[in-house]
């Protein structure tokens, strides 16, 4: 057992653990790419990786600056279109897991990637949705990966770009929306969602952190039931794959 790993590496490994063999996964750039390729190179060789613009199962040999970088389209099995990927796979209901990130997330897993500040007052406009709202709306489940900071894990967020459980409870189901967030992975802990309230519920704490470390750096108190275990750390093999094969230039792991 080793403690020689970064919080980002643990997040990527935790993301990989959410993926099962044979699943279809919609991925944006950054940590989710590392998580997906890691899963595919270990326990999920038959997983399918989708990029929204029309790319299926690439095998990049160089890191890219984003989905628009041809480096991440390299050796794909399919080059097609938004209609093909977001329409006939995601909207059709074939995406098992979608990864999402964001500027802010609230206790119900609603995500903001649109703006910071008050949308009715002074605000700074950011990236917006891209395929994020579509993944949040149409995937059979989503996994959120976000830094653990009070300004990111907030009681109220400035803008709901990608809905989680909306106002909690049955709010999402009432709108007949499928899926919803299943996990929130931060650099301090992993959360699920309480089956009734649909509020974030602490599932595990990353080794090296205390419960207070987790709670004092977030803007709301999550549901906590019983004893909280530590998150399983990465294996040597997982770390080797990340460092030597998947992200040798540390483009995605920051």
């Amino acid at each position, binding site marked *: 057992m080793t403690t020689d790993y970064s919080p980002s590496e643990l997040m990527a490994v935790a993301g990989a653990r959410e993926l099962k063999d044979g699943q279809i996964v919609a991925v944006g750039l950054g940590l989710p790419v590392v998580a997906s390729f890691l899963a595919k190179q270990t326990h999920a060789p038959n997983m399918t990786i989708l990029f*929204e613009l*029309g790319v299926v199962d690439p095998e990049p040999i160089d890191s890219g600056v984003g989905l628009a970088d041809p480096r991440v389209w390299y050796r794909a099995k399919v080059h097609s279109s*938004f*209609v093909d990927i977001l329409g006939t796979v995601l*909207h059709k209901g074939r995406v098992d897991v979608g990864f999402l990130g964001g500027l802010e997330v609230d206790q119900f897993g609603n995500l903001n990637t649109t703006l910071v500040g008050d*949308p009715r007052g002074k605000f700074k*406009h950011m990236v917006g949705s891209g395929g994020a709202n*579509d993944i949040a*709306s149409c995937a059979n489940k989503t996994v959120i990966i976000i830094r653990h900071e009070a300004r990111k894990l907030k009681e109220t967020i400035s803008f709901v770009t990608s809905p989680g459980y909306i106002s909690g409870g049955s709010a999402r189901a009432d709108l*007949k929306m499928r899926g919803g967030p299943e996990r929130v992975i931060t650099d301090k802990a992993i959360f699920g969602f309480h089956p009734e309230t649909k509020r974030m519920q602490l599932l595990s704490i990353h080794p090296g952190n205390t419960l207070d470390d987790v709670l004092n750096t977030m803007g709301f108190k999550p549901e906590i039931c019983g004893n909280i275990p530590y998150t399983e750390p990465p294996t040597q093999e997982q770390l080797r794959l990340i460092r030597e094969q998947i992200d040798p230039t540390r483009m995605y792991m920051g």
Partner: protein
Amino acid sequence: MNKLSTLHDAVASIPPGSHVALPGFAIARCAMAFAHEVIRQGINHLTLSQCVGAMDADILVGAGMADRLIYGGGSLDRFGRLSAVNRGIETGTLAAEEYSSLSVTFRYLAGSLGLPFIPIRSLQGSDLLRNLKERHPDDVAAITDPFTGEEWLALKPLLPDVAVALVSAADEEGNAQIDGPRWDNLEQARASKRTIVLAHKIISTEEVRQHPDRTVIPGFLVSHVVHVPFAAHPCSLFKAYDYDADHIRLYAEAAQNPESMQAYLDTYVFGVPDHAAYLAKVGGEELKQRISADPQRGY
């Protein structure tokens, strides 16, 4: 029919106030040469649309050519935000209609098929939809599935006046081939009244007929075919040329405030008569060599 045209004449065919669908995705296959010429000719009050906002939209907004942007969010990938677009939204000079990638795609798709509306699962429960309902109530509506009685959101088709397609190759009729992923470009061309094709390479109709499965935009949709090598610079064209990271950084820096944006435009748009002169200024033959794509890797 021979539709070969100069970039000047193709751009001059667009009246101010038109709705133009742009081909870029972040920093890939952006119609930069087209945007530069629109700015030089001062064709303004444009409505722009694209599924994911890209550098072609950003420079047009930054130069004051666009009043309105219909898009699904966007960025310059790791090179930064769409600063001109964001500034327009923040200051209220740009009316942005913000969707998601799929919802703009479905609006184009409905337009391409002649559908009166299209139901969608996206947007529900989001502030994107709240804003659209408040500000653009004619573009979104509730509809009841006649088969199940369930409530759905319906979107209105998007029907641009002209689509701009930046393609790998086209013949003089406009039959066009695109290497690599095509994001929303095929639906844009089919939804729009007409399409202007910027082709890196002009091929013969004979070559088109040898590979009919490669024609992704048929010539009968096309009004102008313009031969513009490196038309996407500093963005990439798959299998033809890579993006120019240094110049994207230079643009991203400049776009952060109106003064430096103007200086950029003065140098790289108004300071050159056409795209050939622009290419000479940004690096000429040395640049072309440097960014030329490895045909196997595609970049």
